[in-house]
């Protein structure tokens, strides 16, 4: 059985006044139905650009996209980058849907909840407004909006942030999409509400057997919901693997850094949180060699000048695991152990 989503060598570049910005470079991954894949990375690492490319939301005239994105539908495979805009439009909101970071601004301020969710249903289904309203009501109930009969005719500004994100989820799932892309769905919400929204996404996934692509920079969120993780840095996937393997045996120094920067209640020793030194590089004219080497604490352990001269290719680092590092997992663990011993 083929995975539902296959991304092969996806590269997205924007031409700006300062030069060509290579937002993503040779991104390859796949995602099965019922599975949650988290894409993690700093701002500007290419997470959102990748997800927008999958939705076919980039302006083709102003973006330079190469590679392939396959959606393996029941009716056959569709390749997003080469498909007609009208074909993709019919898939959007129907086979693949998206929820965004800021539920405050992602809903139209002038239309009622019913109007907005019904529109999403009516676009992809044969039926009248009455049927759309019934479906909307059903979805609002499903995502846990209290008193949906009353709230269905209210406007977004009458809802709290968490409730608005529930509305967004209801709208995204109204047509039972096979793929749900959640772009930082909890970043703008209160911590207590974050957990509720994550468990709602989990529940909805079980209900509809959806493939979920979760974009985030929050490792805590990843640990809570993801099956697999893709770590992105400077437009490239630097590490891929099952969640437990990556968390316990990271195969890239950047992942080590990300994991080290999580505040932990059980290991608090009164010291400062460890941050990754430096800033991510500019995506215009990336230097040769490894993009992370300037910030890498492991680079001095790589023999020769390899990190500066050779850009590491994505290599197998165990079962279902890949990383772009000249060091092996064993090397990284050994060096980490030596460091903490000091």
């Amino acid at each position, binding site marked *: 059985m083929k995975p539902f989503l296959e991304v092969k060598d996806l590269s997205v570049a924007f031409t700006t006044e300062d030069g060509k910005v290579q937002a993503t470079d040779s991104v390859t991954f796949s995602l099965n139905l019922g599975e949650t894949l988290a894409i993690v990375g700093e701002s500007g690492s290419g997470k959102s650009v990748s997800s927008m490319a999958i939705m076919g*939301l980039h302006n083709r005239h102003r973006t330079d996209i190469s590679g392939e994105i396959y959606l393996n539908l029941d009716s056959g495979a569709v390749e997003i980058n080469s498909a007609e805009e009208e074909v993709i439009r019919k898939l959007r909101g129907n086979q693949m849907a*998206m929820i*965004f970071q800021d539920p405050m601004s992602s809903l139209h301020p002038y239309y009622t909840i019913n109007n907005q969710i019904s529109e999403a249903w009516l676009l992809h289904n044969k039926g009248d407004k009455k049927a759309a309203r019934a479906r909307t009501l059903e979805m609002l109930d499903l995502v846990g909006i209290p008193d949906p009969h009353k709230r269905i005719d209210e406007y977004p500004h009458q809802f709290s942030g968490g409730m608005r994100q529930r509305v967004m989820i209801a709208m995204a799932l109204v047509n039972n999409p096979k793929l749900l892309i959640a772009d930082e769905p909890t970043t703008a919400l209160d911590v207590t509400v974050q957990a509720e929204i994550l468990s709602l996404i989990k529940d909805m996934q079980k209900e509809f057997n959806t493939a979920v692509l979760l974009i985030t920079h929050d490792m805590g969120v990843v640990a809570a919901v993801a099956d697999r993780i893709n770590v992105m840095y400077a437009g490239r996937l630097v590490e891929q693997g099952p969640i437990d393997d990556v968390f316990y045996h990271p195969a890239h120094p950047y992942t080590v850094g990300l994991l080290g920067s999580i505040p932990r209640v059980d290991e608090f020793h009164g010291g400062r949180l460890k941050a990754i030194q430096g800033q991510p590089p500019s995506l215009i004219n990336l230097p040769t060699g490894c993009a992370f080497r300037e910030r890498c604490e492991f680079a001095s352990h790589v023999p020769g000048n390899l990190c500066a001269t050779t850009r590491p290719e994505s290599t197998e680092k165990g079962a279902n695991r890949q990383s772009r590092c000249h060091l092996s997992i064993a090397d990284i663990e050994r060096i980490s152990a030596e460091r903490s011993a000091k």
Partner: protein
Amino acid sequence: MLKYVSKRLAYTVLILFLLTIVVYLIFGLLPADPAKISCGVHCNAIQVAGNRHRLGLDIPLWDQWWHFIQGIFVGRNYGEGAAAFHCPAPALGYSFPNNECVTTVIAHAFPYTLSLAIGAFILWFTTGIGLGVLAARFRGTWIDKVTTAFVLIGGSMPTFILGLLIYISAFMLHWIDPIAQGVWVSPWTDPVGFIKNFIFAWISLALAFSAIYTRLTRSNVIETSSEDFIRTARAKGVTPRRILFKHNLRTSLAPLITNAGLDFGGLLGGAIITENIFQLPGLGEVSLKAVLQDFDLPLIVGTTLFAATFIILFNLIVDVAYAYLDPRVRIK
């Protein structure tokens, strides 16, 4: 909502009331003497005094104002004996240079101003929004550049130059008849004659406004298109056309309603330059003549109040329309 509107209407009355005081004060402080001006060059002191009495200017300013306020509610009598004249309520005074009640003068002039304002408004509103949407939709292409040029020229040329250019061109081409121009033709009995009378004035007035509306529409549509809720609409598969008309335009045009209401309301008080160029005896012409030529206080007060009423009224209409368009400002 009803409570809010009635409250605002009460405020309107209060503002107009205060406005009458201000206009009377300004008039009282002016150095010119209307009794002397309207009497003529060869009047002696006695004749001027008689004239002052006839105009009702021989009593204190405060009493003049009070008579004016009374007149609005009960009407007023002017003159004595055979020359006696009655202005029925709501009387805004008697215009001696015109030998008519102020309300009658306004009633004669207003159809010109109203026709000018409505026609020009329809023209500039439709072309402004249409061009603005086009320019935004085809941003960066030649369509955008042509509209930008139009905005620059239309927006930066003063009305008196633009109006004159249009008038002279139309005259040279025999499209405009200076003798027939300005004679009232009813739009109900002779729509073609009516349009002939006004079309060039409409165009000249609309050009400047439409440039502003094009620019506003273009920038609003472009700004809205980068809003998150537009991205949401695209993500749920809404067609580009529907995104423009349903999701974008409603948000982009709401602020334009404010401009439209205030501009239109302002025009109902008279478009002085355009009326003057195109020989339309509307409120602008009447006010101009009352101020510059006759020093006709009752008429100045009347036209000022009349114009102010529209401005305040359209402020209210704009607020109500905005609440209707944007649920976030709806009054509970």
